[in-house]
């Protein structure tokens, strides 16, 4: 009788001690000690951010493993603007990719945390989600891959990813933001670049004066229209490289900047090891070109007038020059008025909303 009583007591005790909590492994508050699910599970909910394809643009290709979300973009923007990513905590992505300068650098060459200068002008990040490669020499295919570079580049942010991870994992705010965006408890570099890439994909410019004209919502002045015609003529011949509504062909060209070989910067050939790619650089988009001075891969031109003058003079021959530069030594022979009209048109690609957006 006593034995039976002890048995019943123990059984009741056993059941009464079962811990309640969230037993779902996939939940944010999964409790490995809990034995009874008490309905308290909280799940990782992200808010999808649908990047709307502007009229006439291709669909943006977004990696399956990095869909854009409000949480991811918010985190990416914070990281983009945070000097914490650099070796001494003084420099952020935005230091060289300045928003008001179309996310490029107003200096010819950017200066890293150690006071060292690079040899190329910082690329713009306008409509970067449509890039088929990144950097002037195309060495990074995806934006995620691109974002790995500057953080550890000794002449740029000069940090190590191990150090970045250590810093971020010691920061309670970032731990929470990464948890919200990616449902992770430990921040590794792959998630840092994912967040930055999400933010960059959200930087869409498609509301310039030209866009409004293209959509039938506005008009261009006679000078701008004439510039548009020159741009799309074989005399001006801007469109072959800066065509479509992306205003880039996403390809690489030697546009006749120099006459001497070997090239001081071999560009694409650095990546392909193919001598026929010497001196070729990625075509930049001309959207917001008014704001992205200086121009060319090495920032040699400080004004749009200098840029169009270069083409109007025909450029210089080197062995890999693009055959589209077919007026070598002769030039395009545009009049001053035509050059002025062409620049007027280029300025219609300015998207004030994009440049001023917080």
């Amino acid at each position, binding site marked *: 009788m006593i034995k039976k009583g002890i048995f019943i007591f123990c059984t009741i005790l056993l059941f009464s001690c079962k811990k309640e909590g969230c037993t779902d492994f996939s939940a944010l508050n999964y409790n490995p000690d809990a034995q009874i699910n008490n309905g308290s599970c909280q799940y990782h909910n992200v808010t999808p951010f649908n990047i709307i394809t502007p009229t006439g643009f291709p669909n943006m290709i977004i990696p399956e493993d990095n869909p854009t979300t409000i949480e991811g973009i918010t985190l990416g923007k914070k990281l983009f603007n945070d000097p914490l990513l650099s070796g001494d905590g003084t420099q952020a992505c935005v230091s060289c990719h300045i928003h008001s300068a179309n996310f490029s650098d107003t200096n010819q060459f950017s200066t890293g945390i150690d006071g060292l200068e690079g040899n190329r002008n910082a690329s713009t990040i306008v409509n970067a989600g449509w890039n088929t490669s990144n950097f002037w020499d195309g060495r990074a295919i995806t934006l995620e891959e691109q974002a790995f570079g500057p953080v550890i580049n000794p002449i740029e942010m000069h940090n190590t990813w191990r150090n970045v991870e250590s810093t971020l994992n010691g920061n309670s705010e970032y731990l929470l933001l990464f948890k919200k965006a990616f449902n992770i408890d430990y921040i590794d570099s792959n998630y840092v670049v994912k967040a930055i890439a999400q933010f960059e994909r959200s930087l869409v410019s498609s509301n310039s004066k030209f866009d409004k004209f293209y959509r039938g919502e506005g008009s261009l002045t006679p000078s701008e229209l004439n510039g548009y015609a020159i741009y799309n003529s*074989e005399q001006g011949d801007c*469109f072959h490289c800066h065509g479509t509504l992306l205003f880039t062909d996403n*390809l690489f060209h030697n546009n006749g900047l120099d006459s001497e070989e070997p090239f001081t910067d071999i560009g694409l050939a650095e990546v392909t090891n193919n001598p026929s790619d010497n001196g070729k650089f990625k075509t930049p988009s001309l959207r917001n070109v008014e704001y992205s001075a200086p121009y060319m891969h090495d920032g040699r031109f400080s004004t749009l007038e200098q840029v169009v003058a270069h083409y109007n003079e025909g450029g210089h021959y080197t062995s890999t020059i693009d055959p589209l530069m077919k007026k070598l030594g002769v030039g395009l022979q545009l009049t001053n008025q035509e050059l002025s009209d062409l620049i007027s048109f280029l300025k219609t690609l300015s998207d004030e909303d994009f440049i001023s957006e917080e």
Partner: protein
Amino acid sequence: MKNLSKLTLLISSLVLLTACPPKEQMQADHINLHFSHKVDTLTLIKDSLLYTNEAGQLYSIKNLHYLISDIKLTDEDGNTLQELVSEHFVSSDDESTYSLNLSDILLSGEYDNIEFTLGINSTRNISNLLVNETYHTQMFWPDMMGGGYHYMKLEGAFDNDSTFYNIHTGASMGNDYSITKSFPINLTSIENGNIHIIDINMNINNWFSNPNTITLSTDGIMGNMQRQMELKQNGTEDVFGIALSEIAICY
């Protein structure tokens, strides 16, 4: 040695026997399309000033990009029996574009001709219609000159290394200069899994002759409708040819 030969023969026979499935399991034939390019009898070597055109100009080829569309098999009256390819981009920058394995298209019966169009005919040559294709940004044709897409970009140097020509064909001012060609092939599919290789070859030098002698210059020709028509006429004449071969899986 004699025994070895017998053994080899036996093994070969066994392989052949086992490689051929029973008749009821035979797969349909299919087509591999190849796109090849030469300059008369010379193979295409990029960036070499070694070709001579009808006008006597020495020239090189740096880039050859073109769109070929509406590739199909027809009967002797030109009726479509099998559509093969809607549009295909061929680029000298990427030799993987030189062939198309159409293994998803199963053949059955007899086909008299193969037909294709250099460029895109006017019903579909519309700006942004191919906006999601990888070649969209490279081949588009400005709206101000008629819109749509370049049919072909043939670029290089002539006379010397630093004088360039751009042969860009397309729907200049909206006029359709695409070139549709049809060639007899007399292809019979006996549904034994064979692969029919059809090579569509382009003799680049013939763009510049017959019936019109084209002289290369540094002037663009996109807005030059007379030159576009001359190139269409030359292209219709003898720029293209085809060659057939077959890989037999079973005998």
